[in-house]
């Protein structure tokens, strides 16, 4: 008799199931617009040239070994990663109140932040503190905070489906009416899945309310550089909030902007009020890290640290990032143009107004089903497409398919 005979079969994680279904599909013109990873115009994964260069450097450096990193990670990675988010000249960094924890990807950074907040924020082990995530949001946000022990993970209004844009009034309304001290997970740029970001003025309004109502700021920054092509522009919101004086967390991922998906390179940047607070926070972070993964993996962090700390490599990296961002912008422009040329019902401005890897097409679940089953174009049930899945070779087929779907299926 097994102790595990009652273990139920869990539903597969949707985005990975989609990729699997795509893999199994034999249709020659199939297109994968599912999982969020960059693809070249040939539809291939792209290892950044600067990454290849740095990997060679690492392999040939006999001084490097595979010893344990410190619990909080590679020091040169942590500090350079935080500088990327906050800016080289960040006053908070100069005031010695910025620290970081190297984590396993953006997920790991969110996890560490969530575990810390559950233990120490708004009292000790206060599992009742509401955690607000945008409606919609990256599907794993809910699980990260729930698994960290928070009982109350709720949506805040964000996407206005009717107008295909930001529901600012709803968002601000939730900020005004939520319990004080609630935690808000904010997407720093290139909102996943909608691709719709607040403007600078809107961010300022959001920040004002959050400061007044003592809400906790937890940024998720997975696309810095990837969204607009500019690191500074994509970090504007994070830096603005820092300048407002918030004590806050920023979970950074280097999966997309360095193309280091499977090396799990992430950083939890902590902006504290002062150095003493920071010291105590980091000491508690160590304890949380120690019982989760002891210390983080070294390869990816080394690649990023070497790149960020060398002027030439840093410059080359910025070019590589711009290459990716520019291709996405091109695909956006072309998709919109083709839909308009076809006379596809509806408005398609949102495709170029949205930013980053994803676009919320506005296709409903029936239409999505049609796209997948009849046209062999794989996208999420929410209507989210990964722009990187579009290439000059498949964009006509995709545009025609969207046209057909929207006219045939309501």
């Amino acid at each position: 008799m097994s102790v595990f005979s009652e273990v139920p079969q869990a539903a597969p994680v949707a985005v990975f199931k989609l990729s699997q279904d795509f893999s199994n599909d034999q249709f020659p013109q199939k297109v994968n617009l599912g999982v969020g990873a960059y693809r070249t115009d040939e539809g291939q994964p792209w290892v950044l040239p600067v990454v290849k260069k740095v990997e060679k450097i690492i392999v040939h450096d006999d001084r490097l070994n595979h010893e344990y990193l410190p619990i909080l990670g590679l020091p040169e990675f942590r500090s350079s990663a935080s500088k990327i988010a906050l800016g080289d000249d960040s006053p908070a960094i100069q005031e010695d109140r910025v620290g970081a924890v190297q984590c396993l990807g953006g997920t790991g950074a969110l996890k560490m932040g969530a575990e810390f907040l559950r233990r120490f924020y708004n009292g000790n082990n206060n599992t009742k503190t509401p955690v607000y995530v945008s409606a919609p949001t990256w599907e794993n946000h809910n699980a990260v905070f729930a698994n960290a022990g928070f009982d109350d993970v709720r949506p805040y209004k964000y996407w206005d489906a009717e107008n295909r844009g930001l529901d600012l009034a709803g968002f601000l309304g939730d900020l005004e009416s939520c319990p004080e001290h609630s935690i808000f997970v904010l997407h720093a740029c290139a909102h996943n899945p909608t691709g719709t970001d607040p403007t600078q003025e809107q961010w300022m309004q959001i920040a004002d309310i959050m400061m007044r109502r003592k809400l906790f700021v937890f940024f998720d920054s997975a696309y810095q550089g990837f969204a607009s092509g500019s690191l500074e522009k994509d970090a504007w919101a994070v830096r603005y909030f820092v300048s407002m004086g918030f004590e806050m967390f920023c979970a950074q991922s280097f999966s997309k902007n360095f193309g280091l998906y499977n090396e799990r390179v992430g950083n939890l940047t902590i902006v504290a009020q002062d150095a003493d607070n920071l010291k105590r926070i980091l000491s508690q972070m160590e304890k949380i890290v120690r019982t989760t993964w002891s210390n983080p993996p070294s390869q990816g962090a080394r690649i990023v640290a070497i790149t960020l700390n060398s002027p030439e490599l840093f410059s080359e990296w910025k070019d590589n990032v711009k290459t990716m961002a520019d291709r996405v912008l091109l695909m956006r422009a072309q998709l919109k143009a083709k839909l308009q040329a076809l006379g596809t019902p509806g408005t398609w401005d949102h495709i170029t107004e949205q930013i980053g890897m994803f676009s919320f097409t506005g296709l409903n679940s029936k239409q999505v089903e049609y796209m997948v089953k009849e046209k062999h174009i794989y996208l999420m049930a929410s209507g989210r497409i990964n722009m990187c899945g579009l290439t000059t070779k498949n964009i006509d087929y995709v545009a025609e398919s969207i046209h057909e779907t929207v006219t045939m299926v309501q």
Partner: protein
Amino acid sequence: AYIVKSTNKDELIIHLIWCLYSSWWGGVQMGPPDPILGVTEAFKRDTNPKKMNLGVGAYRDDQGKPFVLSCVRKAEAIITSKQLDKEYLPIGGLGEFSKACAELALGADSEVLKSGRNITVQTISGTGSLRIGANFLSRFHGGPLDVYLPKPSWGNHTPIFRDAGMQLKAYRYYDPSTCGFDFKGALDDISKIPEQSVIMLHACAHNPTGVDPRPEQWKEISDIVKKRNLLVFFDMAYQGFASGDIDRDAWAVRYFIEQGHNIVLSQSFAKNMGLYGERVGGFTVVCNDAEEAKRVESQLKILIRPIYSNPPMNGARIAATILNTPDLRSIWLGEVHGMANRIIKMREQLVAGLKKEGSSHNWQHVIDQIGMFCFTGLKPEQVERLTKEFSVYMTKDGRISMAGVTSGNVGYLAQGIHAVTK
């Protein structure tokens, strides 16, 4: 908030400013330094040229330097030449790695592997594996959520299981009077463990004591564990590293499986492949059949996703390349054997050195114990003297990492130990 009783305007203003600017984290205490890693910190600060770091368990060569295995370097060269992409791994990790990892532990001819009734996932080294295991048990184990650890056990076991929501209990293991295995005490305690509880067993090279049961003792442990219907959680962090022979070190794991225990198992490749910082490990659940294994796998993925989504590629790719390339595997087995042998030699030299110093104590346990660590039997006051007077750094429990001992410093160590114990 609290009432400030003051009529002094300045005081009130200062208090108001304090309230406005007071931090969320004012109440966060300074966490205590890690007992093991703290030793290294203190070691670093010491200026004595003869200082020795016998704290953390990382292998060192006879020059006291970190050792990158040549099979690892060769594997890295092969991998670089393949110019692979960096796409996300599946949640459960690199397939070729998990398969090879399970084979290494269970044996290639294992009936479990043939029937597909195990699920093995890649994890963030041993710690990550234990954590996933603890989370899995916490969520799905139908029996009491009590984990019985040997007394003593690796310090990090306790907080890992506790954080996962389980309770920690202990069974007797180490006998300080013999510096050996308290077999009778262990059997006695195990026979009283409530049914369906979880029992943690160190597969080989027990950490921190270096004391392992003999095969005939393992057999009796298996019997009593079966009688008590306990769920066995094996922690195998030193396969190959203990005796130098990977099959010999996995004997207990394989025996228990043969005896019908459906075990859960954590493996680490930190030490036996020297891949410490790459975080390479595996977690295995041996199930009744392949169908159950599929259900368990689906739940492990649900647990892993909100922690780190999917594991890091680099180390797993290196390990898989080594395990799956006959030439490299051969080299690896030789190098693991070499590391284990050096440790065994240092044990012998330490005891010889102590005899030479004129020590009248029985130091046989230093040779009888196995693996990276040696539970010297030194008391805390003696450890303190050893550190203060000789700059020999170790943990308070008297544990030394033999990996930090070299032919160049073993004499000095013998001197120091003799001085504080005569």
